[in-house]
Each structure stands twice: as C-alpha cells, then as structure tokens.
C-alpha cells in the first residue's frame, strides 16, 4: 500500500488544478469501478454496486486537492511573490521547495529577518526559481505550485506532503478493491477544492444525492510535545468523528461506525476536533439534508510538507471502511 501512497502524494494537485492526480486515481480505480464520471468542477465520481434490500446510496468523499501557492507578481529580477491556496503557514515555507505544475521547481525564502522572535507574514516571502530576470522566468502570474518533498518511509510511520488528503484516496482505493458484496450503491468521490472551502463535495453531493455521507480525512493528533490538546494519537486506530466546528456528526452514524468497529475488533478513537472541517460538512447540508460523518486518520504536522501518519491506522481504516460499506444501517 506504501507504493500507492507514494505515487499519490508525489503527484501534484493544488485546489483547482487536480488534472494530474485525477488521472492517476482514475487509472487506479478503473478496474474496480462499475461507472466513472467527472463532474463539471472536476471531482471524480466512482460508482460500485447497486442498491438491494435495505441498502443505501452512500457517498464516500476524500479530497484529492492539496494546499499550495499561486504566483501573484514577478519582479524585474525574476523573484516571485505568491499567495496561498488553502491554509499555508509562513513558518513551514521558509527554506521549502515548491514544484510548479509545468515541472519547474523553486525555493522559498524571506526578505531579511530583523526580528527572529516574530514570524514574517506570507507577503514578505518570495519564490526563487533560479531565473535572473522577469523575461527569463519560466513561470507566469497565476501559475500554481505544491510543496516538493519526497515520500519518507519510516517503517510503521510515513511522512510526506499532501497526506492530507491523499491518505484518504489510498484508503478509498483499497476499500473499493476489497468491497465484494454490498447491499449499497457506493459512490467513491475524489473531490476537488476542499482546501478552499469544501467546494467539490458541495456539488458532487448534490449530483450523487446520497442517503448517507462518509468523509475520509485527516485530523490533528494530540501526542506531540506540548502539542494540540486532543484525545487522539497516532497508532490507536482510525477515528470516528463526533464533532468539529463545521459539523456535528449524525448520532446514528456514530453508533453505526462504533458498533461496526467493535464487531470486527478494529481499534478506533473518538474524535472531537477543535479546529478545521471536512467534506462531511458540505454533504450534510445537501438538498433536504444528508446524515453525514467523517472517519479520520490521526496526523501530525498537518498542512506542513512533512505530515505524518501511522500505517496501522491506515490499514485499520481500510478494514473499518470496508466493513461499513459491506453492511448497512437503518436511519
């Protein structure tokens, strides 16, 4: 599964520019899908199975976009100023490298630091692509880039940029392969533009019109030195999201997920996230309302070029998602 994750995280796809990652995911899911569509915004909608008996139409959403940067200005000497696509923080930028969609690479640095105690804001930073002038600059205003950092295999744990949310893509692809008999009509949706406001999930959910929504995403981990004070750790299982500031998960689905995990002896954690939201929030608001929930992977250093997850959590997430999708629940 690490080979798949490596391919997924090393393929660039900032919000709005998901062509390359969509093509990769499409090639991975094609042998296992009953039907594949791409909607007008670019979300990849993969159907498997038909509704039988008490089965439900279920949308599983994981976003394929990632955070990145976009060029706003190029000066006479070829230095690029940029804005963020999604939540990019200055302290993770300085010294980082970026990869443009046309293959050009650059490094980020800052104007002279006069006060080492305060963090420069994004507008003080610039990208140097090695060009000596504006004319020789190989990228243009409006070009976008993602952070460039190779996949790191640490054994039980892995680190990379874009594990938010390619780890979900990996879990969903594996689960799509493993679901054999299901009473449900399943829509695995690889959404676009989550990082800029849950946009792909909003329109894809309207199109799919599901009866149940399950987002797969990352959540903060509370097990780092003096870090976030949340009761979630790496390696203790996928989470059952109960709350974040964007969604109060559907109580019936919380019970379904917990009962399923316990029935199959899959470890799980109860997640209460203080900051951030996921595609589940967008699905819930769709049409006349869709009961929705999220399963998360505890992740350290979210929105940095070195996000870290535990492979046991990933494997257990595949098991839990597969078990859920092979069963059904009353609403």
């Amino acid at each position, binding site marked *: 599964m690490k080979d798949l994750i490596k391919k997924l995280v090393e393929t660039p796809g900032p919000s709005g520019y998901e062509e390359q990652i969509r093509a990769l995911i499409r090639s991975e899911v094609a042998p296992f899908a009953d039907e594949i569509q791409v909607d007008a915004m670019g979300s990849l909608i993969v159907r498997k199975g038909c509704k039988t008996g008490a089965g439900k139409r279920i949308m599983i959403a994981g976003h394929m976009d990632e955070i990145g940067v976009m060029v706003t200005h190029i000066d006479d000497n070829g230095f690029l100023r940029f804005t963020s696509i999604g939540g990019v923080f200055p302290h993770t930028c300085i010294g980082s490298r970026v990869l443009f969609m046309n293959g050009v690479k650059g490094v980020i640095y800052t104007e002279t630091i006069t006060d080492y105690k305060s963090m420069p804001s994004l507008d003080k930073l610039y990208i140097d692509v090695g060009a000596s002038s504006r004319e020789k600059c190989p990228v243009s205003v409006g070009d976008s880039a993602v952070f460039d950092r190779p996949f790191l295999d640490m054994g039980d744990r892995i680190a990379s940029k874009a594990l938010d949310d390619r780890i979900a893509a990996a879990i969903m692809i594996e689960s799509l392969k493993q679901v054999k008999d299901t009473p449900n009509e399943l829509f695995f949706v690889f959404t676009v533009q989550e990082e800029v406001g849950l946009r792909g999930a909003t329109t894809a959910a309207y199109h799919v019109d599901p009866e149940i929504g399950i987002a797969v995403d990352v959540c903060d981990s509370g097990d780092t030195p003096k870090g976030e004070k949340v009761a979630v750790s790496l390696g203790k299982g996928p989470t059952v999201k109960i*709350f974040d500031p964007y969604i*109060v998960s559907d109580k019936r689905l919380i019970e379904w997920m917990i009962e399923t995990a316990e029935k199959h002896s899959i470890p799980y954690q109860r997640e209460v996230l203080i900051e951030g939201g996921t595609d589940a929030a967008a699905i819930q*608001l769709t049409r*006349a309302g*869709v009961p929705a929930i999220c399963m998360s992977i505890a992740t350290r250093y979210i929105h940095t070029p070195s996000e870290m997850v535990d492979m046991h959590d990933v494997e257990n997430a595949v098991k839990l998602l597969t078990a859920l999708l092979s069963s059904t629940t009353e609403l």
Partner: protein
Amino acid sequence: MNDVNEFLKEMVSAPGLSGYESPVRKIIETRWRPLVDELQVSKVGSLEGLKKGSGSKPRKSILLAGHMDAIGLMATRVVNGFIYFTQVGGVDPRVLPGQPVHVHGKELLEAVVIQPPDFLIPGHTAGAPVPMEHLVIDTGLSADKVAELVRPGDIISFAQPPFELSGDTLAGHTLDDRAAVAAITICLQELQTRIHKWDVWAVATVQEETAYLGAYTSGFGLEPDLTIAIDVTHAKGPGTSESDIATLGKGLVLGWGPNIHPKWYEAFQKAADEMDMRYQKDVMPGHSGTDGYALQIVSTSRPNMVISIPLRYMHTPVELVSMKDIRRVGRLMAEVISKLDEDYLDKLDWEGNND
C-alpha cells in the same frame, strides 16, 4: 395563553444541543400534534408541522423557522477525573465558572464548571478571564469512575433551571431560540380559529448554532414560497452597543437588510400598524446570523423575512426575554399569514405597490 409560559419553561428545561435535539423535539412534537394536520421529522432531525390552508390546490406555502437546538459544551479529554471541553456553538467562557451542568456520559452526571486558580494557568494574567481550554468540569466522582463513564465527544448541557422574573419576563438557557418555537406555537394556536389560504409549515430547525443545517435542508425539502426566520436579537442592556436598538418588552423586532425581501417586510410593517402593535426595526446590513440566511439562498430562493425577539445576555445560561414580545411575534405572524391571498406572490412587486 399563559400555558405558553409553561411550554417554554418545559422546552428550556430540556437539553437538545446541536445534533442532539431529540429530547426537546419530543416536547415540541407533543405540543404541535393537535395544532397541525401533518407532522414529520426531516432527514437530519428538524420537526416539520404542516397546517393546511383553505386555498385551492396547488396551494402556496409559507415556512416559519425557529431553531430548537441549544449551545452547550462537549468533552474533549478526561484527565485525572476532570473533564476538559470545547464549545458546541458560541459559548462565552467568562460565564462558565460556577455553572451547574449535566454531563451526558454513559450515565447522566450532575457537575459544575470550575476554573483553576490563576497561578496554575501558564502565562495567565491574574484576574483575567480564563480561556475555555483551561476550564474543567468536576463531577465529584473518582478519576477511575469518570474515566469509565465519560468519553471524548460526550455532550454537556447547561443545568440552570428557567425562572420567571418580574414584569412578565423569563430567564434561562436556550431561550435563543426556543422563544421563537414558542412564538411559532402561538401563531399555530391563533390560526386554529382563522381562515388562511396558504399552507403553513412550522419548522423547529436543528443545528442552527453550528451550520444553519435545518434551515438549509427544510428550506430545500419543503419547497416553500415564502419564509420567515424567527430568532432573538440583542436587547439593550449592560455592555450592548448603541447600534443594538431593541428594547426588551418594547415590541418585536422586524429585520431589515439584504436577507429580507423589502416588499415582504412591508406586509409585517403594515399588519403591525393595523393591529396597533409596537415593533422595532433592526438593520441587518450583512448576514443576518439567522436561519433566514440559509432560507434565502437555498435552492431557487424565495422572499424571506427575519423577525426577532429582543433578548438580553445572549448565549449565557441566563438569557432574558419578555413573554409579551414572544406573544406579539406569534400574533403578528398569524395576522400576516391569514391575510395572504392566493395570488400574493404575483403581486409581490419589487418596483410597484403591493396592494
């Protein structure tokens, strides 16, 4: 009509945090059942009551939305028998220390919110309000027992009982927005003895405090032709700004701004004038911060109105409302609804007159 006081007190004595509204929904269901022709629960838990109109089919419908969910707290961690928590909806941590709460763990637990002494809080200025992340809940139980009974994600509701104050006022938690549900109930009662051509959907919405969920989804699912969001607004009191114009007990508040259709607004103004009813005008220049926002922008949109009940000390366990204002909102809505002609929408002209 005084039994509405009892109904409102019963509602605000029940929990029903955003996403966990079923205790209060049951109370409202019982109350609405004899007042409506049909009663249903939406896919996400809003209570939708239909009182059919007398007009010819296909009948137009009006949707009245008041949210039944409550703000509250949720356990995030249990450490040495103490419960750390976050907020569900907007809770001001300054009012929490000393509050009685109910922890909805494996058992219902009585508890209190406490703040540690200043010197125990890292980097804290003595005397400053204590941030929510440092407040804890004490159930009185041993650490082992708490760990067994309470888990992250358990909800915690305010336990402050409602109490009537002088001057026909009521104090308690969650009067935002169960006061509006009471007003909708008064409207339904009034409509029992009136002829109204339009269908009326009375909706107690869910998860307004977190996502306007009930308004978005019932606004889509019920396909109404006109909507009214009923909510509370800051009444003048200590610490309110000059732009908070509403005065408690001095009449309901008619919202005015981009969330509100100007001609639909006029129907309320006119009816209030004809009834010789006091009202105040509230300028809502942006997002009204109510279900009205969702009702206006969902699906194909329709004319929306926002009516507010003046309330002091919003989002505290001692919100304060005047019962008079609540009754006025109910009566005014009934008056406007019973005056709706079958062709009201055809006459609802942006440019011209509406009569």
